[in-house]
């Protein structure tokens, strides 16, 4: 294949989506630092992460699961029903002339489970994206700081 997976992804799958469950604003696509273009998230202006997506040639479900588990550091349960996978064929990505017709990409998605019930704890641990350094971090849903603690302490946070 002449075009790399990362380029394909950046050009075809990185448009804004809507924030899922949390708010009505758009969620932007951000590649996650240190993942070599393999993992991205969608987060809204409030930093809430609605999805984490892993792009790979093979099924990346297990890798995604362990990445998210490490990221949430055991504070949140990563459940199988929040993980889904999709096979992308060359024609769907507008890349047919660059391929021999096989599968070119698998997307594994993790969806942050945003519940709205009376028993929901407003301070429950939730995954956010730091506005300053782009890393993913956990904080209580209702505290909604824009930056991770590292950036806040460094005074480098965008407040």
């Amino acid at each position, binding site marked *: 294949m002449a075009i790399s997976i990362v380029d394909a992804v950046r050009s075809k799958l990185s448009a804004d989506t809507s924030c899922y469950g949390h708010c009505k604003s758009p969620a932007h696509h951000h590649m996650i630092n240190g993942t070599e273009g393999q993992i991205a998230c969608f987060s809204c202006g409030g930093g809430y992460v609605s*999805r984490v997506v892993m792009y790979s040639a093979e099924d990346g*479900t297990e890798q995604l699961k362990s990445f998210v588990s490490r990221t949430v550091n055991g504070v949140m349960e990563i459940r199988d029903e929040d993980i*889904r*996978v999709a*096979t992308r064929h060359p024609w769907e990505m507008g890349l047919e002339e660059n391929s021999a017709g096989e599968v070119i990409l698998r*997307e594994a998605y993790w969806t942050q489970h945003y519940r709205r019930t009376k028993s929901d704890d407003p301070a429950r641990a939730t995954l956010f994206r730091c506005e300053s350094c782009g890393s993913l971090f956990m904080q209580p849903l209702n505290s909604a700081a824009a930056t991770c603690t590292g950036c806040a302490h460094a005074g480098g946070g965008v407040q």
Partner: protein
Amino acid sequence: MTCVTRISVVYANWCPHCVPTTVEPMKRYAAELGAELELIDIDVAEQRGDSLVREHGDWAHDYLIPQVFFEFDDGRIVHVMTGFSEGVEFTRRAVERLHESDFYGKLLQR
């Protein structure tokens, strides 16, 4: 390549990626290819949908819909599309691109 005898769509009526975005065009594609159209509503025929997705598609505990499969006269079943979590617009475009593809074009020439 052999010819398509059946297009199977695993879908749900409440899902905008499925109805009308995928189901309506697939009715036309099936007619055009001279294939039977099998609509598998996961709320009605869960087992049939599950087994197709598990064996040939993008299986997960709560898998993405729609998923579309082409069955050929030699018995092969090929996954051709899964809906896009990125948005309905992506799913709509994928349905169109399938129709415009060389892969589809070659099936039409049969």
